[in-house]
């Protein structure tokens, strides 16, 4: 039981981060039908922004401000940096190609991804940086759940992710802008004809998706420690898988898919072998797509014939 609980916590932590990242893929796909392959790099820049604040404020060993304030500022910086990059991507890499062939923005996305990776390599070098979170929040602190104790940083990651996902759901379903996002997602041309500023809605979507990725980047830095210029690639791939498994374009699907991938990784490692972790995650993707080609929460697309 202890082992199962521990793996559940492990999977929940990882899945929470994947879910935040998957939301960005899903939201952008929902309105633009575009796979934003640079999303992983947006997340990576968020992680570096958080690291930068940590460094400016004295580092984990000698913080100049209270820890809670430092962590808050790290999240703020990550949100600002990631959303700025996300909006810039939309403006310069995707918008000019919006009315071109479907493959063009896809290639632009891949190019943007490499560009951001190379920019990070030049800016931050290839060395790994460590948040050294155990110095910020001691490993001994935590909440006991049955026979195990969950480190406070993990608790923070899980709770923050849950709160952000709830807020996003409320925003999409209860606000005027959220309604506009749904309308654009449903039919961009019709939404424009109804007076919705489509460009503005797309920018807001990129902004929110990228901000969530930035938060995810800081969370990963805090809970897992290492940030480096290629960290966005694998995480992005997993989050993309999560979005597809959940049903790309579906916000609840992205959340569920993220958690599913997180649990799949943890249980595979725990009960089968770490060697087969990725094999099983991607096999899961194949199985889900075979059974439900539009993902678990994806809806059938109605096509006028």
């Amino acid at each position, binding site marked *: 039981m202890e*082992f199962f609980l521990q793996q559940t916590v*492990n999977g929940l932590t990882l899945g929470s981060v994947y879910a935040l990242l998957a939301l960005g893929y899903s939201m952008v796909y929902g309105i633009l039908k575009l796979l934003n392959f640079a999303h992983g790099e947006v997340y990576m820049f968020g992680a570096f922004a958080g*690291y*930068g604040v940590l460094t*400016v404020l004295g580092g984990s060993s000698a913080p100049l401000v209270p820890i809670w304030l430092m962590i808050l500022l790290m999240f703020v910086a990550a949100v600002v940096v990631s959303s700025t990059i996300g909006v810039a991507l939309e403006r310069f890499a995707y918008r000019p190609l919006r009315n071109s062939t479907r493959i063009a923005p896809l290639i632009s996305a891949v190019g943007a991804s490499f560009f951001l990776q190379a920019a990070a390599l030049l800016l*931050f070098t290839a*060395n790994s*940086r460590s948040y050294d979170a155990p110095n910020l929040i001691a490993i001994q602190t935590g909440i006991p759940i049955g026979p195990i104790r969950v480190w406070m940083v993990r608790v923070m990651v899980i709770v923050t992710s849950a709160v952000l996902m709830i807020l996003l759901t409320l925003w999409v379903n209860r606000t005027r802008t959220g309604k506009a996002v749904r309308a654009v997602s449903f039919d961009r041309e019709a939404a424009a004809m109804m007076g919705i500023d489509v460009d503005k809605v797309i920018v807001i979507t990129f902004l929110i998706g990228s901000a969530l990725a930035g938060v995810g980047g800081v969370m990963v830095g805090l809970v897992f420690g290492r940030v480096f210029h290629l960290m966005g690639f694998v995480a992005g791939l997993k989050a993309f898988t999560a979005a597809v498994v959940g049903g790309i374009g579906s916000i609840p699907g992205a959340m569920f898919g993220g958690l599913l991938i997180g649990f799949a990784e943890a249980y595979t490692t725990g009960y089968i072998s770490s060697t087969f972790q990725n094999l099983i995650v991607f096999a899961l993707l194949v199985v889900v797509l075979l059974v439900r080609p539009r993902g678990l929460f994806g809806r059938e697309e109605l096509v006028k014939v």
Partner: protein
Amino acid sequence: MKKRSQWPKMVMLFVAMALVAAACGGDDDAGAGDDTTTTAAAAPAATTTATTEAAPATTMAPEPTTTTEMEMIPCVATIGFIGPITGPVAFIGEVQLNWMQYAVDVLNEELSTEISIVEGDNQFDTAQSATLAAQFVDNADMVATVGPAGSDNVDAAGAVFEDLDPDFSFVSPSSTREGIAATYTGMFRTVPTDADQGPTTADFMIAEGAAKVFLVDDQSSYSTGLSDSTTAALEAGGVEVITESVSQDTTDFSALVSTIPDDADFVYLPWQVAANGQIFANQMAEQGKTMRIFGSDGMDSEDFTTVGSLVAAFAPDIAGIAGSADLLAGFLAEYDDTNTFGPPVFAAVQVIIEATYRVCLTGQTPDRASVQAEIANTDLADSILGSPISFTSDGDLAEGQFFIFEIQEDGTKTLVG
């Protein structure tokens, strides 16, 4: 008129400062940067001493009178560098390239040679390595190259060198797979092989009374090769070995950490990314796992600081070797950071340049065949690695040796085996 808020500007300024700090700061670099300034002035003199001590020890070392000849006939050649300057293990390639440039500068000054470098970024990709090998062979001025870094890439490049020009020498500073040097005529290496490190590691654990070892490889050829040799030696010693595997890109090991049996005596991590080892150690602490971690030479880095853990190294701490410490200080005066993959590059460059130098001293223009013959004759009594360098007929290091250190509370390492 409405007064515009200053908050957005302040936030942007703060964020810009944060990114600059992320770029400039770094726990990896901080210590090195502090130390280098004071020792920089002493470095050139010290490096001169270190290299001149090494030169007479070579079998073909000339009498001082030949230096005059050197002054009259410039010893000019080009040497290559094949390494992962970008890509997934750019942290290795960057440091290797920096050491390459540093070594060429130091040795050119020392020996009055005019050796230039052609850089080749293989991105740790075998196809790129093969392409670079073909390009290098095609470069008539190039006499030899340093690299490639990993054994898979050595295989890819080695096949091309062997096919196009077996006289072309390549001295790898970090390929450790057993038996690979025997496959290629022109291959030499300045690091011991897995056949040296694996048994050394296993013997130490057995001597410490290990009955069960949890071993995790990082799916690189370096790691799996080392994992195999260590497992074989441990099992031969009656130790139960549980093997697992994770990608180098992984940063969450918590699920894997949960599977470490409570009665394991050691967790052995033959990894190239030391920062990952530290994360693994943190996650072990988080789950109350207290068994001792043993890292391979790839973990011998400032990034891995878990007190009480053990790391293997192919040299005693070079900061503690008289000539090498000065070389290290000279390097750190020019470059921010180093790691365990750097000093063997200096040794590889030294091997090639001194071989070229010896050819020049005979009055010949160095070419690939003559340089290869001289590399094979290398007999350095001492090196930056603190040990002699000469090669077996296969091109392996003749006296490869590994050392084992324990990490102390103050971050220093104590030699324990």
